């Protein structure tokens, strides 16, 4: 469906993305994950034929983004990071406008408008001025706009940014529903979001692909180990070494002489042993907790691992 090969984009002398290669199959929901400035939006803009690439090719449904962009633009619905809304229009007139410029025939405009109003739960605000709507509603109008022409492919750039938790859940549910009938690419810098929606994740870092993996694969690789944070009151020498001797402990990182990050095998319940040891040596436990992997950890891990390979 979407074939990206060696995609590179320079902004002046600065490369935004460097040689991206990936495929997206029909009906797949793929997440772009990456910190700000990783090149997510740039990639999406190129896929939507808004920006031309410096090098590399993108083929969508067999059409080239550069040569046959008009064909592709008919098949793609795009929600940019800032929803492209005219604040002085009402929701209905805006959606009708979007339908018309997206090539919906005149006699089907009203039907498509009502369909997306229904889908995005916008019926109650249909006659309001967009500029006066809350951010959550505006985001939904943006989403409605992206699917007004019933595109095969939806590209959503951070669809839940700036929303409150309830709205986030609603949007996620909506994307879930759409996933059954559309190919979706969405980007985010929030991990749980991706894990909730996507089947496959492409992690971008500094304009390069740090990892492409299915969600299962990614979580599995992350769940090989879990981490414990131990903080003690009484510092003494050799705590790290002693902890290292425990079964199932993979590594111990001392952060100062009172704080230790213990990496241990999954579900090994090392907590018990650590606590016992701490009591025996009267280190004085202040805190002992499992630390979940954050997005930062994943990036660090992935980027560090890659550097390790290079070296």
């Amino acid at each position: 469906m979407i074939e990206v090969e060696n995609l590179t984009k320079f902004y002046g002398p600065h490369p935004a993305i460097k040689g991206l290669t990936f495929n997206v199959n029909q009906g797949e929901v793929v997440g772009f994950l990456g910190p700000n400035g990783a090149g997510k939006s740039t990639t999406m803009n190129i896929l939507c034929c808004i920006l031309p690439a410096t090098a590399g090719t993108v083929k969508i449904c067999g059409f080239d983004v550069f040569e046959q962009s008009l064909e592709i633009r008919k098949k793609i619905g795009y929600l940019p990071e800032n929803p492209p809304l005219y604040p002085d229009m009402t929701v209905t007139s805006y959606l009708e406008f979007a339908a018309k410029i997206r090539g919906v025939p005149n006699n089907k405009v009203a039907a498509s408008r009502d369909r997306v109003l229904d889908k995005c739960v916008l019926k109650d605000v249909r006659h309001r001025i967009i500029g006066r709507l809350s951010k959550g509603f505006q985001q939904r109008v943006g989403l409605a706009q992206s699917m007004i022409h019933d595109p095969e492919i939806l590209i959503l750039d951070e669809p839940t940014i700036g929303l409150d938790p309830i709205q986030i859940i609603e949007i996620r549910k909506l994307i879930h529903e759409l996933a059954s009938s559309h190919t979706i690419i969405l980007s985010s810098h929030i991990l749980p979001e991706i894990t909730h929606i996507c089947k496959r994740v492409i992690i971008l870092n500094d304009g390069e692909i740090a990892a492409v993996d299915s969600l299962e694969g990614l979580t599995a690789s992350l769940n090989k180990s879990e981490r414990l944070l131990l903080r003690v009151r009484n510092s003494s020498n050799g705590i790290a070494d002693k902890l290292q001797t425990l079964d199932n402990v993979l590594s111990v990182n001392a952060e100062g002489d009172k704080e230790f990050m213990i990496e241990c095998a999954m579900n090994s319940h090392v907590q018990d042993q650590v606590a016992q040891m701490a009591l025996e040596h009267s280190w004085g436990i202040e805190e002992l907790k499992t630390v979940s992997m954050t997005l930062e950890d994943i990036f660090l891990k992935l980027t560090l691992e890659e550097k390790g390979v290079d070296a």
Partner: protein
Amino acid sequence: MRNAWVIAKRDMGSYFNSPVFYVVTTVFLIIYSFIFFNILNFFSFQSVQAGQFQGMNVGLNLNEMVIEPSFHNMLVILLLMIPVLTMRSFADEKKGKTYTLLLSSPLHLKEIIFGKFLACITVVFLMILLSSYSVGFLLILGQPEIGPIVTGYLGILLMAGCYVGMGVFASSLTDNQIIAAVIAFGFSLFMWIIGWASQAAGAGLGEVLQYLSLIDHIERFLKGIIDTSDVVYYLSFIFFFLFLTHRVLDSQRWR
């Protein structure tokens, strides 16, 4: 063509939904009316004088003494007003990020540009139409010749089209509306007075400059003559600036 019309309709809607159109039109009509009635007053004063002395009424002509100078003045007021209307066309889309909606839709760039142009020129047409009450006034009071009035309006519309073309072009250069307005105003004024340099430039170049000058082509329209060379000049002027807009917007995607 349908796409251009869709764009134009949305733009017109945003003109009529915002105070811009109403403020600009009101100011335009007030200043134009002020000038028109002053000219008319001067004319009637002269007529009265001419009535007192036999033989002086030769050459008193509504078309030449009222309508022509009014139209000239209208062109100056439009020069000041149109940049305010055109400044939003692309600058606003870029600033409001709505430009991505247009770019990600299956539209040709030329359809977007023509739609924007169409919206502005329609709004300007409406302004000129409203101001035409003044001519109606003269038709009730006297017997001005209709021909030069019609051709005069055609000329004004063509020249306004040039202003709009330059305005849309200026708006495509930036995402700042004020900069767009200032550039549009600068272009329009410069193209108006460019003929002044013809004397200094010498014979060959001077003629070219004279020909390029916007104001040089309006005279015949106001006199009631439609010269195809003038029509061609105005139309190619508009086309040239819309073409430049196309080049600018196209090249901006590469940066």
